[in-house]
């Protein structure tokens, strides 16, 4: 009967362009109020990815969650028999190099034993363009999650490091909110690695990505990366949210694989909606 229930057809259609402009203006006002210059962001692997993110890339002074790759099968002995995940360290190394490309010496802190990379990729031979010398990388071991949280917060607040890669397994909403506040106080990019099973946890991070492995035909390595959430951008407004990344064995450069199917989210979204109202 004539109910005043809000159905999608009666909602006013606000143009998405106006919303984006308003959001931008709000950000500018916020930064003016805080008295800090705008921070900029780090460009990712291709324009199609950058387009979907607020600000055109991974924003500095924000927390970005990367829900890592799950192992199928029983828990490994070397991890103590508890977790069964491996963080996407190759992608992190690529992101770290991108974050450190800017002006000034780039420094990175790796907090938590689970996200420590094998240093060959960092300290590679000097003739390679991408190389972080020994004193630019800090490896922090903190077995307890409270200590890990404290250490990540301290590094973020001091903003001496351009990028922080932290093991965020087991953090709840309050913890991620603390990290987000600490990140906003500084200028570093925070990459938080979490096991894939924690996708259902609430989190205060600015962007959320889910990484899984993909089989590759050649000798290059492939991952499927899905953008689950980006603050400031509506999920419906996104054209694409799944990409396949490829890393070349020789050059270790990561880029979007050329031959990938375009899966747009809108068809899936509308289909689901139709089911609900139907």
């Amino acid at each position, binding site marked *: 009967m004539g109910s005043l229930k809000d159905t999608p057809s009666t909602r006013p259609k606000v143009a998405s362009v106006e919303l984006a402009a308003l959001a931008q203006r709000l950000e500018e006002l916020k930064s003016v109020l805080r008295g800090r210059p705008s921070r900029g962001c780090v460009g990712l692997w291709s324009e199609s990815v950058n387009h979907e993110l607020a600000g055109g890339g991974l924003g500095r002074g924000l927390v970005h969650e990367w829900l890592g790759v799950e192992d199928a*099968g*029983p828990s490994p002995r070397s991890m103590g028999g508890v977790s069964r995940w491996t963080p996407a360290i190759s992608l992190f190394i690529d992101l770290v190099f991108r974050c450190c490309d800017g002006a000034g010496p780039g420094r990175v802190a790796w907090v938590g034993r689970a996200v420590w990379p094998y240093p060959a990729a960092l300290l590679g031979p000097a003739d390679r363009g991408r190389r972080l010398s020994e004193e630019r*990388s800090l*490896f*922090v071991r903190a077995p307890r999650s409270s200590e890990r949280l404290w250490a990540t917060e*301290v590094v973020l607040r001091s903003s001496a490091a351009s990028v922080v890669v932290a093991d965020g397994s087991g953090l709840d909403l309050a913890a991620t909110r603390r990290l987000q506040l600490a990140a906003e106080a500084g200028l570093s990019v925070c990459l938080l690695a979490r096991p894939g099973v924690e996708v259902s946890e609430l989190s205060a991070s600015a962007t959320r990505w889910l990484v899984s492995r993909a089989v590759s035909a050649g000798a290059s390595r492939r991952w499927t990366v899905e953008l689950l959430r980006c603050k400031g951008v509506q999920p419906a407004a996104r054209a694409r949210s799944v990409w396949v990344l490829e890393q070349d064995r*020789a050059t270790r450069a990561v880029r979007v694989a050329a031959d990938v199917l375009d899966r747009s989210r809108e068809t899936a979204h509308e289909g689901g909606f139709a089911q609900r109202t139907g």
Partner: protein
Amino acid sequence: MRVGLRSERGERGAWVGGGGEGGQGVRGRLAIILTRTVASRELVAGRCEVAFASGVREGMDLAHARSLVPARVVVHVEPYRVDRVADRLHALACWAVRFSPLVAVDPPDGLLIDVTGTERLHKGESRLVRAVVAGLNRLGFAARVCAASTFGCAWGVARYGEYGLSRIAPGREREAMEPLPVESLRVEAGTVRALGEVGITNVGHVLNVSRASLAARFGPELLSGVRRALGEEREHIEPVRPAEPSRSVLHFDGPTDHVESVEAAAARVLEELVGMLAARERGVRRLDVEVLRPRAAAVVFSVVLSRPSRNGKHLWTLVRARLERVDLGEGVEGVVMTAVRTARLRHEQSECAALGAGEQGAGEGAWGELIDTLAGRLGADNVTRACAAESHLPERAFCQRSVMEPVGRVPVRVTSADRPTVLFDQPERGEVMALTPDGPVLSLKWRGERVRVVRCLGPERIGVEWWRGGVGDGPARAGRDYFTAQTDGGRWLWLFRSVGTGEWFVHGEWG
């Protein structure tokens, strides 16, 4: 190294001449060469006794020098750093204070000691000279010593004289210096050249020329050199003063167990110490804090910093964190802070660090403070840096060193081969089905599960470190063949087959 000793009473002075910069050169198994890069060529700037004995001289090309050293001797090559040499010489001068309180540094490789009045203490000058040489040899230096009445004479005889150890009787300076070349008068190269043009090559010739014409033709420097050597002019040296560590103390009127009072007192002591450091232009690297208690032993703890700092706020954060854990017991009656290890820290550096604190390029100061804060709470062993080690075995190729240890080692070549991003702590055993026993892998049973391998690249053979003697430990008894394999789930694993035993292990993966 030269140590100059001079005695007022008989005008005795002594020069100890140096034979060369070098650490363990006297044993004959290790040769040390210091190099200087001139127009992209590496030339020898300094050498030790063993290298000298093999024929290496200053100014030689490094490759030539290496070829002269016999094969059984290990050659260690390092760049020549003037500041390090100066620091070392200063430290040596502070050591030499045990012979006489007036020790001066004579760069680049000498010391001057004034031993006026110390003959009784050392029971004679010859014993003193021998004691100096013995002490220097114990430290690893090869030294030439000369004792004479004037510094000039001792300098010349030690550097250019015949014998390593010599002693010039008072009044015999003239005949001791006559056979020496003109450089022993401490004149510039230009003057030496000018003298050579006229045919004056040794000091005897110089002394035969009249003083007035010497001054007129070659300048006052030559004349003063002659006068100083012969004792007609007094020469003074600038002695070094070994610095006392900065220390600030506060005693209470009576013991107190109020935490706030103890903290306030400690803050005041720290402020005073920072003031002392600022006056000396030094930063502290290790701070010892003693909390004095009545009728009990004092509680001592040290705060170690990765970089010299005199930032009061930062030091207070570190000290306070440790002070909170101190057991006050019956009360505290004083606080003492000593800056045990300090380093030179100029004024502008600390200001820059404070300025750049909020910006992206925060600078070394903020990074150092971050490291100190993390190490203070988590322990210095839990905050590390990855360093490349001299090994090609993957598990030994990198080691984690604590951040408090200084960087600046000899650079090590890192392999450019493809290495995984995660290396397991221990290689994990697996069962492999392959086409041939040492061939590409078809399927792998690992961690209790069988996976199919869709692609296998390799092998890469990594050999054993045969120079460590005997066989390697663990699986590396005769080398390993490494394969890179992709499973049907898209996972890339790094596995190896031990060549000696034929067992397969999974060593790492690409995350």
